[in-house]
């Protein structure tokens, strides 16, 4: 395995074209091929909320060490139309190349760079020769690209065979497209391109998937048996995946009439004893806030994924942001314990989804997995998931045929821990009364001041126990130097670019640390405090304007940030932006 990039051991591709041209698909096929060839990959897409037409692109980065995000620059541009060349030429590294259709007319002024390589390929002509649909031009370009970087066409063809399994004709045509693109580039451009991605000949057995995929798999592994969700970008792929796999997952998967219906259905299923989940984005979460409080009051364990996108309101549906943190933490009237956990990569998406189910059931609280578009729509290669790592813990859920206690069953029994044992509906000898009104231990409505206080305190005791457990769960992760001159602090999807920035700083000899806050509620005040202590200058990195994590840290752990790197145009941070900011701060 050999990866030679221009500046480091990574190579970056950008596939660009129109919506509806299968850009993301092409980029991820390439990613998967490179992964099978031994490389680590990361791929992210960028597209407007448009079904056909409009510019779309996908950036893919590969390396012989783990890649956490896209790079700042592009080494090889696969331009499926002229617009892509014009829009992205300035992102090309010196010495980089452009693969494009040979018939594209580029007037002199349009490409002012003499420092890059032009690789015209007869994309259209080859597709016509094969007799395939025009979307197959992508595959020709992929063939050419892997030829230029010295990769293996057979691995690419294998990925195509697997992806289109069962659709013989399509596979064959695509294989030919790869070959012809590959051969054309080999013959005409030989070894001229300086980036190399030579496979090791051994598939290391990794998987490449999105955060959405990983959350869906985490839910399946956690024993979620009921999923109801109303479509909303960027969370819809979880619905699509689970709907397609409902038999394998043994899951009831429903698209109901609204987000209100989605969460109340999930709540109904959870009340009946089933692990259940929904997913949405900000606007849908707004509609769920009332039912979130219902889950809290009835102590029903529901799990909910939020995929953030830029607001307010409809905002930019297909872009990314981290501006719903404080809303998520405070949503719904009244005060109650909840879990809010923010994974930072695909593996965390999987394991933390499992943890969310466990915490929801152990503490009988709503649990929210707070993600964003960039995290859940980007692909990353990762080690296969270990199902045993988290396990299933249903807490005080009693699964028995009959209630044999002398004492009548009390749904809201006042206990020291604050957690009242649950039983399955239908258990002989016991009925279960849940109530959105303040209630007695049996669940009957009450406004008696003492009873009301006792029940409220019970719920808060749960919250304290939950907080203790979370402090033990690795709620804050620290990467990089022990004796740091600078500490970058972030959450969720900024983890990727931040880790890449760390790599760059390390190369420069800068001692830097990255602190990832994973649990947002209950807030791991102590762990955050410990992670920030002695970290040198503190730089907060968030994809919002008001430094929302910064507020939580200030409030709970007492640290303030002099430096804040904010990005609010919907695009992910590039590692170089963080790197530059660190340099500025130092």
């Amino acid at each position: 395995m050999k990866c030679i990039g221009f500046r480091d051991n990574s190579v970056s591709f950008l596939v660009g074209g129109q919506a509806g041209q299968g850009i993301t698909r092409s980029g991820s096929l390439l990613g998967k091929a490179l992964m099978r060839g031994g490389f680590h990959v990361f791929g992210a897409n960028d597209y407007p909320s448009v079904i056909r037409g409009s510019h779309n692109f996908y950036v893919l980065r590969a390396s012989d060490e783990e890649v956490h995000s896209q790079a700042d620059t592009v080494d090889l541009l696969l331009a499926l139309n002229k617009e892509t060349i014009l829009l992205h030429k300035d992102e090309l590294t010196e010495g980089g190349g452009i693969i494009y259709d040979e018939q594209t007319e580029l007037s002199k002024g349009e490409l002012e760079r003499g420092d890059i390589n032009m690789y015209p390929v007869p994309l259209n002509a080859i597709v016509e020769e094969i007799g395939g649909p025009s979307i197959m031009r992508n595959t020709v370009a992929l063939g050419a690209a892997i030829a230029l970087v010295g990769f293996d066409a057979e691995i690419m063809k294998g990925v195509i065979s697997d992806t289109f399994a069962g659709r013989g004709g399509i596979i064959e045509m695509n294989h030919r497209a790869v070959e012809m693109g590959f051969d054309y580039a080999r013959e005409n451009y030989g070894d001229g391109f300086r980036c190399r991605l030579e496979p090791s000949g051994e598939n290391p057995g990794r998987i490449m998937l999105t955060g959405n995929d990983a959350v869906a798999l985490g839910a399946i592994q956690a024993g979620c048996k009921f999923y109801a969700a109303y479509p909303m970008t960027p969370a819809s792929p979880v619905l699509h995946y689970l709907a397609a796999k409902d038999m394998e997952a043994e899951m009831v998967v429903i698209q109901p009439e609204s987000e209100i219906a989605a969460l109340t259905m999930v709540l109904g299923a959870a009340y009946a004893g089933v692990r259940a989940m929904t997913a949405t984005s900000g606007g849908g979460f707004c509609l769920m806030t009332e039912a979130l409080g219902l889950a809290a009051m009835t102590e029903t364990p529901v799990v909910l994924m939020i995929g953030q996108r830029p607001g307010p309101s409809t905002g930019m549906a297909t872009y990314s942001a981290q501006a719903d943190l404080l809303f998520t933490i405070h949503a719904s009237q009244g005060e109650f314990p909840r879990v809010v956990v923010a994974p930072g990569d695909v593996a965390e998406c999987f394991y933390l989804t499992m943890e969310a189910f466990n915490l929801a059931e152990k503490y009988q609280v709503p649990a929210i997995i707070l993600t964003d578009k960039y995290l859940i729509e980007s692909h990353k290669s990762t080690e296969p998931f270990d199902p045993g790592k988290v396990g299933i813990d249903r807490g005080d859920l009693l699964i028995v045929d009959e209630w044999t206690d002398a004492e009548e069953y009390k749904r809201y029994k006042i206990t020291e821990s604050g957690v009242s044992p649950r039983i399955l509906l239908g258990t002989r000898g016991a009925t279960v009364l849940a109530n959105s009104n303040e209630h007695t231990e049996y669940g009957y409505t009450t406004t008696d001041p003492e009873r009301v206080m006792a029940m409220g305190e019970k719920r808060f005791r749960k919250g304290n126990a939950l907080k203790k457990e979370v402090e033990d769960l690795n709620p804050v992760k620290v990467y990089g130097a022990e004796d740091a001159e600078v500490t970058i602090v972030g959450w969720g999807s900024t983890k990727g670019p931040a880790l890449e920035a760390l790599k760059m700083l390390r190369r420069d000899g800068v001692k830097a640390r990255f602190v990832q806050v994973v649990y947002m509620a209950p807030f791991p005040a102590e762990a955050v405090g410990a992670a920030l202590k002695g970290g040198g200058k503190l730089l907060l990195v968030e994809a919002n304007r008001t430094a929302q994590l910064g507020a939580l840290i200030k409030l709970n752990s007492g640290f303030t940030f002099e430096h804040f790197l904010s990005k609010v145009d919907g695009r992910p941070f590039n590692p170089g932006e963080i790197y530059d900011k660190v340099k500025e701060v130092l």
Partner: protein
Amino acid sequence: MVTMQDLATPATNTWCPGCGNFGILMAMKRAIVQLGLEREKVVAVTGIGCHGKMTNYIKVNGIHVIHGRVLPVATAIKLANRELTVIGFAGDGDAFNIGMGHFSHAARRNPDITLVVHDNLIYGLTTGQTSPTSKRGLKTKSTPRGVFEVAVNPITQALASDASFVARGYAGDMRHLTELFKEAITFPGFAMVDVLQPCVAWNRINTYDFYKERVYKLEEEGHDPTDLMKAYERGREWGDRIPIGVFYKVERPVYRENFPVLKGAPLARQKLDGIDISGLLKEFA
């Protein structure tokens, strides 16, 4: 066998003396007793409003949810455990104002659940505002000059939404209501019983006297509950004569048949150990 006694709870009843809800509660208890249901296998789902207190007064499983959300919760409980008999109790406001968005959708899915609408044509618990079923001209706190809108008609709404069992009962006719409840509960599919429920506190028009003079029984007039167009016609009747009974019923596949996984044990009883996603991971490798 469960008895009326078994269905009593220690909670003090706080409905107004004379409220139609007493009739509904009693008829429902009788239906449960007469059907021989076990109280552990019955789940009551209630919305917010006077009707919502049902879960306090009947000793079966219960969940008192938020305003308007009886149907999605009830639908999911039934999917989670088909061994349970799931009965929703909603107010007219609960079902047809804030909850309207769920009504047609529950109906077209056809889960095997019952929906009882405590239709007092008024907002009871919030002290007497207009409800969607309030008839034109009714003076309420929020419509002091009288309601302007055409009232929502639960019967034709249900028919237009392809509900498979559509009935109306009257809280003042316990025997009839009990039979309707029994038929609705045992009907395989989504069964709505809209119950005319006098609210003695706020609705001074649609009183026991009002209904006594007007209510007649569809079954006594040879109504054919399989004729949809006839059901629409009867459903539009509201004046000197107000029909009660079954307007329409038709059996069609129930919602759970949509889900292959529900062919096995009830979801709630499925074991969670031994789940193996390795097969699923292959497509990502």
